[in-house]
């Protein structure tokens, strides 16, 4: 089990949280003019990196607030957590 540092509650067990995939995917604003490919890319296509992953979590069995985390997808180590809307944190140039 991994420990996750909720920005609002502090360090808690992973089972209190739910992961909701890649973060920093902005909904397109010019929706009327999007092609099928652009819609498909926004809705379904993901980076799925082997390495640093910026992702969304929700503290579903705690404060129920959303936040973002940086995790290495091979070690599963969470390198940083930060509030939604904040820029990607610097995690020491790791890839």
């Amino acid at each position, binding site marked *: 089990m991994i420990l996750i540092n909720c920005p609002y509650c502090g360090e808690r067990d992973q089972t209190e949280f739910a992961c909701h*995939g890649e973060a920093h995917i902005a909904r397109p604003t010019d929706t009327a003019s999007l092609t*099928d490919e652009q819609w498909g890319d926004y809705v*379904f*296509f993901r980076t*799925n*990196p082997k390495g640093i992953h910026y992702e969304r979590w929700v503290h579903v069995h705690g404060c129920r607030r959303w936040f973002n985390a940086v995790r290495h*997808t091979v070690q599963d180590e969470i390198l940083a957590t930060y509030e939604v809307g904040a820029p990607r944190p610097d995690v020491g140039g790791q890839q």
Partner: protein
Amino acid sequence: MKAYSLLALARNGLAWQKDWQRAWRSPDPAAAYDVVIIGGGGHGLATAYYLATQCGVNKVAVIEKGWLGGGNTGRNTTIVRSNYLLDASAGIYEHAIKLWEGLSQELNYNVMFSQRGLLHLAHSVHDMQEIGRRGNAIHLNGIDSEFLTPQQVQQMVPFINLNCRYPVMGGLLQKRGGTARHDAVAWGYARGADAAGVDIIQNCEVTGFQIENNKVVGVDTTRGRIGAGKVGVVTAGHSSVLAEMAGFRLPLESYPLQAWVSEPIKPIIDCVVMSNGIHVYVSQSDKGELVVGAGSDAYNSYSQRGSFDLIEHTVGPLVELFPLFSRLRMLRQWAGIVDVTVDRSPILSKTPVENLFFNCGWGTGGFKATPGSGHAFAHSIAAGSMNEIAAPFSIDRFNSGALIDEGAAAAVAH
């Protein structure tokens, strides 16, 4: 290739087992091939086998980063079935079962395909409606399936606890479903492909693609550059990594999927039991171990370990359903990395790069499809366009919206 037979067994026994031929060669890579298959798991080796034996492609190579069948082929729970709801799924999975049924004979290699029956349990009114709908859809596709009452379930598995927390209300049985020896599938296809002239190159990692004018012409590997007329990528959990090398993204996320085996016991369960409602599936290997699986992890990862909480989520329903298993110990636990699409159906497709084909997205249940996937993919690569069975599984469906949404309706072990 010397055929395996009773006579060969006797002859080699008399020769102190010293004259057995190696099952496949370990050649150095040639400068170029007509088709290069990346990934030496079951699906990749099956693709190479059918390319060489049925499609008339002479120069084929399989490039594998590690050893044959060391990925998900060697990590799954060996379940084979074709009880799917949708026509496209029924098409490819039933195609696979028909090939499974003659596979040991065709490959001259015992893949231990055992049609011991696959029993899917229903625990709620919703489950009953789901198996009713799916069972009838399976019938309409000409595939075997039977509805069972709780009493009939108990006759098949006498020690089941029907009155568990979510009582068993019925079952859906596919008698032609069952299990196969997963390693033997990789080895059998490897041996057959090698005999047909396919070069199987292990311990050779692909590091990039050579793409000219949006057309793939070769691959860079840790053993040098290998030219290729066409390239088929069959790398399961690492498909997104390979796609990134080729300059595009896939509608995939990779998750660990765990499995467990118990200590070996005498034969006790002679079918595969799976429960979607309380989420566990179990069968017994020929060694006597219970082979147990359940859901994938809660977050995407390439760790090949699996998270601890899933163990409890799996063992809980297992002992609820079969209280006598509570005294067994688990011997081993492991995880494989499964590439999951949003509609839980696979991708067999052309890509934005010409002559580059991907076979991926099998998610939590690719093993059962191994022969059908390889067969359809081989014929599609050889023809340069996806055949009738593979066509619905194009990447384009994520743009057009023609998803093959098995996610809600499929049984647990997809």
